[in-house]
């Protein structure tokens, strides 16, 4: 590449930011408000997830077999544990493992939980860093002090800070049958990957299985090699759940269901490819705009002076329909058919002064938009004023 291109690029980018507006006078206050709101939301999330699984965000991970130490297959473990080898990178220090166990207990049962939830014994299966060095995947089993056995799987979003439970996204399910030869532990490593929209998933199974076949309807399935029954596999954009089959090279493939943990539905949901862009949305009258999947609430802290009726632009796929509710007016919710076509429909009038029910969480007045959809429904929605 010629240097003149690079010089031109530098000049062009400088030109592009030449009309930067003045700094907002309350930027620091805005940051502090967001921090406070983030803490409240994290606390709410932790409380809501105390019963079962926790879904979170992280970054895609790739298999790095060269860095992994693998214990011998069918190692000596208690009868309730899986006799599979341990895949642990030498680069993952002990504090990360300790942090995972502590985060599991704190996030699943709350800090200061009764001692019955304390781990009596921990069997490790996976502790592997991600390709982008910003994530560590873990899988382990725990015997609690009350004798219950749990399988814990998930990832650390910030390897530099494993002590903070907030940095962990963990699923907690009952320990599986250790004698099931076709048992597969898998889950998506959801995250802020720069390759959009991307999926990566972890597979852990009996080391006798050499390959795994992930597939979606209408596509020729690739075959992925396992390293002693383990792999972290990038997959790319998805519009459906991913099905897995085991292949040993002898006999037909054995279907084992969708990627994800059987008792943790959130772990079975991939990052869905967003529907196509909405067209013709009047930007000057935009109230809120987003793409996503499943239920979501957006709160727009625009001046509450916004008023009048709304128009909703939406496109979705993956389910029969979704509902859009503006300012918590559930009786005036708008239903959009999920046929992957753009729909433009009249929405309700905004509430004067904004949606008070969200104000307490957001730190200021504004208008809310709530999407109610199945977890496998991907959508784009824009709400504009008329």
């Amino acid at each position, binding site marked *: 590449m010629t240097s003149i291109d690079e010089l031109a690029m530098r000049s062009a980018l400088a030109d*592009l930011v030449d*009309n*930067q*507006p003045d700094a907002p006078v*309350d930027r620091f206050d805005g940051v502090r408000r967001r921090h406070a709101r983030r*803490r409240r939301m994290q606390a709410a999330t932790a409380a809501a997830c105390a019963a079962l699984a926790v879904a979170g965000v992280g970054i895609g991970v790739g298999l790095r077999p060269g860095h992994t130490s693998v214990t011998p297959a069918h190692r000596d473990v208690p009868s309730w544990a899986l006799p599979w080898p341990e895949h642990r990178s030498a680069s993952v220090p002990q504090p990360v493992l300790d942090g995972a166990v502590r985060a599991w207990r704190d996030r699943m049962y709350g800090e200061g939980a009764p001692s019955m939830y304390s781990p009596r014994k921990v069997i490790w299966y996976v502790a592997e860093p991600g390709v982008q060095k910003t994530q560590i995947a873990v899988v382990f089993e725990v015997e609690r002090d009350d004798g219950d056995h749990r399988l814990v799987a998930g990832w650390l979003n910030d390897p530099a800070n494993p002590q903070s439970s907030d940095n962990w996204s963990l699923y907690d399910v009952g320990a599986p049958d250790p004698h099931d030869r076709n048992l597969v532990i898998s889950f998506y490593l959801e995250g802020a990957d720069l390759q959009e929209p991307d999926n990566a998933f972890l597979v852990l199974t009996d080391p006798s299985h050499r390959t795994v076949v992930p597939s979606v309807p209408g596509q020729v399935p690739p075959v992925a090699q396992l390293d002693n029954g383990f792999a972290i596999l990038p997959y790319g954009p998805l519009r459906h759940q991913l099905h897995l089959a085991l292949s040993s090279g002898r006999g037909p493939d054995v279907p084992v269901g969708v990627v994800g943990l059987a008792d943790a539905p959130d772990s079975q949901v991939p990052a869905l490819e967003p529907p196509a862009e909405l067209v013709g949305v009047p930007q000057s009258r935009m109230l809120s705009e987003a793409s996503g999947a499943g239920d979501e609430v957006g709160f727009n802290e625009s001046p509450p002076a916004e008023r009048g009726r709304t128009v909703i632009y939406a496109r979705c796929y993956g389910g029969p329909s979704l509902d859009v509710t503006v300012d918590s007016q559930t009786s005036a919710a708008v239903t959009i058919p999920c046929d992957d076509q753009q729909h433009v429909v009249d929405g309700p009038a905004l509430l004067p002064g904004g949606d008070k029910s969200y104000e307490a969480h957001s730190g200021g007045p504004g208008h809310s938009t709530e999407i109610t959809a199945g977890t496998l429904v991907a959508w784009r929605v824009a709400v504009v004023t008329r």
Partner: protein
Amino acid sequence: MDRDARAGFAEFVGARGQALQRTAYLLTSDWALAEDLVQTSLARAYPRWQWISGDDPEAYVRRVLVNTWSSWWRRRWRGEVSTGELPEHAAPDAFASADRRGALRDALARLPKRQRAIVVLRYHEDMSEAQVADLLGISVGTVKSQASRALAKLRDDAALTGYGMALPLGGD
């Protein structure tokens, strides 16, 4: 966070906020969204300030900013919280420069996210290939190849034809 750390953080926001907003704008093409991104990133850095302030806090915040932006395709509500007024400055050559900037903005938006991040970090932030690779968690070779592809795309982009005349993109 103690009083000194809080003061240090406030000082950092005041000193570097505008620079971060410029980077955010080149990633988002929207000044309000850029401010949203900056505040979100700073809010994430805030609770860790005591640990990161002694090292290179701007590098940390920039990393958070890029990672946050890269995750916005799925979960972002436009105009969620933008504090303060963001007045646009009227440029003397308003029409010509608006067309030129619009074309470049559109062309940047057509780049894959990773290429766009590399372009912004490499040619706006003036980071080395190694620094970009470290921030994005990719190899230096990938940075080189992706930067090269991005520049080629921008050079060949029809929307940049007018702009290319003003700035010799692709000229040898």
